[in-house]
């Protein structure tokens, strides 16, 4: 493939939203209340919408017969390059919202920069996604504050979620080969430059939520290289089931 770095770079953005969207989609009919159920699945649909734009573009770049659906549904586990954070399970609503919050803050910072990309397709997708993701961040931040600064029990549940999920945040700021190449060309976002701002925003909202970032300096990584946690296989089994069982099926 001629533009392999660009292709891989796009997957690096889109796979995060695909897998997080799939996780949120699991809440369809299972949310803690009808209203939050719809809210989470709305966010899921926003993410899938964005993912389609990215994969359609990636399919065009690949220049062979592959379609957006092939890219979404027919890769093997090691070929997905999403961060480990987004594949973590919906253990309870505290985990679901904390995972969302930790990703939303990053996602918004990332899109703000991607808008400036010299690649006009990517900058257009970023500009279009900004409003959606701004709402996602507002929604998840509100829940952080509401539950963090809620009852003793809700505070404890949120703190548990932060303690467990924080270790997956550092990977957001690791650069892949495709990242480095694309930053050089003015197409990609330099994620290492987002880290400080990310920490500021997360810290300030967690303070308002009376929650604290765990002190541990040990972080998990691997997703961006295709090395996933044990949850990933189960996600893909569900995600890919229809296409694997009835190849080329359409709705």
């Amino acid at each position, binding site marked *: 493939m001629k533009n392999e770095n660009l292709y891989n770079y796009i997957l690096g953005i889109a796979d995060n939203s695909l897998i997080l969207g799939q996780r949120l989609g699991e809440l369809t009919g299972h949310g803690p209340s009808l*209203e939050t159920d719809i809210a989470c699945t709305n966010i899921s649909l926003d993410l899938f919408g964005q993912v389609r734009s990215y994969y359609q573009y990636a399919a065009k770049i690949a220049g062979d017969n592959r379609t957006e659906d092939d890219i979404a549904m027919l890769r093997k586990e090691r070929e997905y390059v999403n961060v480990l954070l987004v594949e973590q399970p919906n253990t309870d609503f505290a985990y679901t919202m904390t995972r969302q919050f930790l990703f939303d803050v990053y996602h918004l910072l990332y899109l703000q920069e991607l808008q400036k990309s010299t690649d006009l397709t990517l900058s257009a997708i970023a500009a279009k996604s900004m409003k959606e993701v701004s709402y996602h961040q507002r929604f998840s931040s*509100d829940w952080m504050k509401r539950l963090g600064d809620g009852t003793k029990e809700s505070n404890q549940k949120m703190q548990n979620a932060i303690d467990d999920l924080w270790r997956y945040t550092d990977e957001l700021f690791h650069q892949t080969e495709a990242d480095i190449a694309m930053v050089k060309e003015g197409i990609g976002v330099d994620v290492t430059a987002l880290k400080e701002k990310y920490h500021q925003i997360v810290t300030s909202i967690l303070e308002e939520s009376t929650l604290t970032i765990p002190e541990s300096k040990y972080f998990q990584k691997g997703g961006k290289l295709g090395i996933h946690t044990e949850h990933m296989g189960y996600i893909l089994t569900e995600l890919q089931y229809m296409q694997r069982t009835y190849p080329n099926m359409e709705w």
Partner: protein
Amino acid sequence: MSTKNWPLWEVFVRSKNGLEHRHFGSLHAADADMALENARDVYTRRNEGVSIWVVESKNITASNPQHNGEMFEPAQDKVYRHPTFYELPDEVKYM
């Protein structure tokens, strides 16, 4: 875990600029902020609205259906209270 339901809220949505808010339905929420966000997600996700009002249902005073006779029937035979005896100029919209 508390199994108590959140309070009920009534949702009013204005569909287009210039038209009034209309009652769209109700939902549960812990407070006004959450009611607004829930209303956004439940009632405007198909691009229905440009403005949302929420009010806690307990704050609405409703007429008693048992009093419908004395409340509403006296108006039934007073057609002269309808402004149908005037000619409306074409320029007047939304009447």
